[in-house]
């Protein structure tokens, strides 16, 4: 379909066009409150077309794949008529990096194997007074991108996600401990064992509720808990935020903004990650982007449009769905070149030993609300633990942490030895000194 679409667009759009066609099949298995409940399948295909006509850019998408290419082209042209002028140049063909994105084992795993994964997790997570949900999802995708400048590419990919959450309700105390694995291949037995250890360890420590400490304290953020501190930074490193003038990092390229031990890369070439791909959704070949190097801001991410507006080059971060226009988006964010460790590790990544009194934060409430880009945050804890004399002494319920992410990243007190993937971010636990902790 994509060849006809590009051909049809070439005839009618004087400024060229690019398109994405994507098809996926997904199989899901769900265990609800401790029992197998449903199995599902999804088949979806669609196309997204962008045209440039008389200097203006328009976009159209459809899942009606039987529709005539001309109809989609007409809609994209109608969208372009309203658009602003944009000097968008479609890239020419460039060599694509070799990258394995398709794993037969994941693509062909029979339903019973997926159910087996779920059963084995349930058996290891069930305990008195708790209820467990487990979901397993496997998907196979095919993607084609092409443009009128002759660039293009296609690849197949696989993905497998396993998530589990354990609920314990005692009176009005609701405790939920969850974890998830996501990768391009089926998870190894070792990875599944690590997931079980991760949930059980956090649950064991959570059974005892203790009072929160109070004041400016050392706080360890686990790889999952780190979201509140990473979000302002990744938003600030997006070329789109820079272009809008709302990024505090906008004018800081080449400057030392973070602790000299902080490096951040975006890596679309990591084998085994679902976000990895040989080229982006705008025909730009993938490569690793160094965003922050030893505390110094190096580069922002751009797609074709934000790059054109910022008068720079796309970094290969164009992401598009079936509907809407491409946007800049990260692939795999890696803190300090961390390599994830498959083996189960101690909660806190070895950072707790030196802490006389502090907090270990695993999940916060309301991350992403408010004025994220500015860096200030203030969140009640969803799951956090008190640290006393280097040990976890129990779960803290009524506490809130606050600070400014940019200030905190200037002086990191330590990185853990427990780097792991949380979604598409790979990071270890991180210790910060002097984080505001308030008891409610």
């Amino acid at each position, binding site marked *: 379909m994509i060849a006809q679409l590009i051909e049809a667009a070439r005839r009618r759009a004087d400024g060229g066009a690019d398109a994405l066609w994507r098809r996926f099949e997904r199989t899901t298995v769900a265990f609800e409150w401790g029992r197998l409940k449903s199995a599902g399948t999804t088949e979806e295909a669609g196309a997204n077309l962008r045209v440039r006509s008389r200097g203006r850019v328009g976009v159209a998408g459809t899942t009606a794949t039987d529709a005539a290419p001309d109809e989609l082209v007409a809609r994209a042209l109608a969208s372009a008529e309203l658009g602003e002028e944009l000097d968008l140049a479609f890239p020419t063909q460039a060599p694509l990096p070799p990258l394995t994105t398709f794993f037969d084992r994941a693509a062909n795993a029979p339903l019973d194997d997926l159910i087996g994964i779920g059963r084995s997790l349930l058996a290891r997570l069930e305990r008195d007074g708790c209820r467990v949900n487990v979901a397993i999802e496997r998907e196979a995708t095919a993607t084609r991108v092409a443009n009128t400048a002759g660039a293009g590419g296609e690849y197949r990919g696989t993905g497998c996600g396993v998530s589990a959450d354990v609920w314990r309700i005692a009176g009005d105390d609701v405790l939920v401990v969850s974890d998830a694995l996501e990768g391009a291949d089926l998870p190894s037995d070792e990875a599944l064992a690590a997931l079980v250890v991760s949930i059980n360890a956090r649950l064991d420590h959570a059974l005892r509720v203790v009072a929160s400490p109070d004041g400016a304290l050392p706080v360890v953020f686990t790889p999952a808990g780190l979201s509140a501190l990473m979000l302002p930074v990744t938003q600030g490193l997006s070329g789109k935020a820079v272009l809008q003038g709302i990024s505090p990092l906008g004018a800081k390229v080449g400057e030392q903004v973070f602790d000299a031990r902080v490096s951040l890369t975006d890596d679309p070439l990591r084998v085994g990650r679902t976000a990895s791909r040989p080229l982006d959704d705008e025909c730009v070949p993938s490569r690793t982007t160094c965003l922050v190097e030893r505390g110094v801001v190096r580069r922002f991410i751009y797609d074709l449009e934000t790059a054109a507006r910022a008068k720079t080059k796309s970094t290969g971060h164009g992401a598009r769905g079936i509907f809407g226009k491409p946007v800049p988006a990260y692939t795999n964010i890696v803190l300090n070149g961390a390599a994830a460790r498959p083996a189960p590790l101690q909660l806190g990544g070895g950072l707790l030993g030196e802490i006389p009194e502090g907090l270990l934060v695993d999940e916060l409430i309301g991350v992403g*609300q408010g004025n994220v880009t500015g860096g200030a945050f203030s969140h009640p804890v969803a799951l956090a633990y008190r640290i006393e004399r280097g040990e976890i002494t129990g779960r803290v319920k009524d506490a809130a942490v606050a600070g400014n992410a940019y200030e905190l990243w200037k002086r990191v007190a330590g990185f853990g030895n427990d780097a792991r993937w949380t979604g598409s971010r790979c990071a270890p636990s991180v210790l910060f000194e002097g984080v505001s902790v308030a008891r409610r």
Partner: protein
Amino acid sequence: MIDRLTAALSRSRADYTEIRVERTWSTAVTFRGRRLESATASEDQGGFVRALHAGGGWGVASFTSLDRLDAMVARAGELSRAVPVDPPIRLGDVPSHHADALLDLDGDVRGVPIAEKKRLLEAYNGAMLGVSDRIVDTLAVYRDEVSEYWYVNSQGTILHELRPDITLSGTAVARRDGTIEKGLESIGMRRGWHSVQDKAAGFRAVAERAVALLDAPTVKGGTYPVILDPELAGVFIHEAFGHLSEADFVYENPQAREMMTLGRRFGKPVLNVGDNGAAPGLRGTLPFDDEGTPTQDTALIEDGILVGRLHSRETAAAMGERPTGNARAISFRHAPIVRMTNTYIADAPAGRTFDDLIRDVKLGVYACGAFGGQTMLENFSFTAAYGRMIRDGQVAELVKDVVLAGNLFQTLDRIDHIAGDFRWNQMGGGCGKAGQFPLPVTEGAPHVRIEEALVGGDVAP
């Protein structure tokens, strides 16, 4: 289409089968600052099949190519057989319905050129930008859709609906030196083009407020009597209580069931809460849910006592209660799950006014609008759009960074006065649950007083 679907149903070998097909036309226009960011028209179509064999779990299939309908019906049946479930899934009884429910499109958006939609949004965006040169950025989004919907199930229900939805939102960002404040306007209705005309005043007002907030002090953290305006009270009841009343949370979880035992006191006698999927013209309103159950007004809290919950056919059967028409899916890509529709706190019968609520408050906070909120079951955190101090029974100065945090059970129990000025908040956005976002819902409430709540803009000591 109906013939095609009933023919496919007749070939299913499962004990229960349902098929949903949707075809959705939508347009979206976005302005950022003075620049049009995009204007697109989309067409989305696809189907969903759910099958149940006796002794089996749900077999589910969704697809975008309708040529695959028969294959997907067969596949859903196979999947159901592949997942044995004990005890078996049962479905609450719902009489079969035949309905051709074409909701009032109120000016069919499909007949309005996208250039005209752009002009409308440009005017509202301009109303925000024109307030002051302190307004340094705006984001304005127009979105509409009309969804043609077909539903059949093997118990004889046949539905055909035309469902409109229209939303407009505007964010105004005001800045002076390092201080940034924002204002947020949002409009959403299950109606059409006519309902979103002449709305510039609301956009102007939020931009004016963003500018005013530049000079407003941060609220001093602490415990206060707090009055929630109808918007924030609605968001609060949806987020903090509504989700707990969704029966899929309790039906197979004995501890949760105990926590949510009907008859438990949740608040003072003044508190009445419900969910009404049949209220006319609201975003959460539909004649039937996505299992073919008619929607209704369901009482959840009456005189402070928990009296009901929201059900799908499955959760109702499991708990020996009646389906309430709350099984909803955001699209053909998803299975229906228990969701809210239009959730509300009812007017107090005594008919009090806002002034009655603040009269005896020496020092308190009037928290207005919602920038966001999140609940982790019994704990919640809500960010109000802005606040005003209440001093000696009078509304006083504007304050910012009003964040309410607390425990649901304690907070519900501390609602001591409710006014008689109920209104629905007809906003855009939507509710998220289990990967299904945004589901159109509405919330409504009068002014509500919490005798004591923790307010913090900044928790720093």
